[in-house]
């Protein structure tokens, strides 16, 4: 099961700090 992060800004900062790539999933599915 993928653990999607929804704290976008923090996730992007963490990815940069950890030198990891990011997979951004834009969805319009209902919450």
């Amino acid at each position, binding site marked *: 099961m*993928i*653990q*999607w*992060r*929804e704290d*976008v800004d923090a*996730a*992007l900062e*963490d*990815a*940069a700090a*950890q*030198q*990891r*790539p*990011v*997979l*951004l*999933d*834009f*969805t*319009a*599915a*209902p*919450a």
Partner: protein
Amino acid sequence: MTESFVPVRIKVRERPELMERLGAQWTPTIIVRGPDGKEAHRIEGFLEADDFLGQLLLGLGHLAIQQGHPARAEEWFADVLETLPETDAAPEAQYWRGVSRYKASNDPAALADTARAFEERYSDSTWAKKSAIWRVPAAAR
């Protein structure tokens, strides 16, 4: 997948401003970005599972090229060809495998070999047309 990426889900109904800020025009859209924020690959629109997986593998390949690892990129593209040969990602993978080999070796034979490979497989694809410029005339072979 979480080993390869930090997976981030953006629910655009809740955060519509992030579409423009992060460069998405439609949903569903998947964007693969390097740690520096540079886009390596994107998937726009719905895809069935195999086609989606093929595109993700393409994304890993493009990411590897972006990060200066063409040999690793070649492996990702080869993975698409070996495991998902019937998907729309496969012709693109064949093209970029050739590019990766060239980038890793600086040997133009890698590009000529790729053009020849398209004569055998995926010859009707757009990627075959893109590789046509690499063909070595028969008399020169």
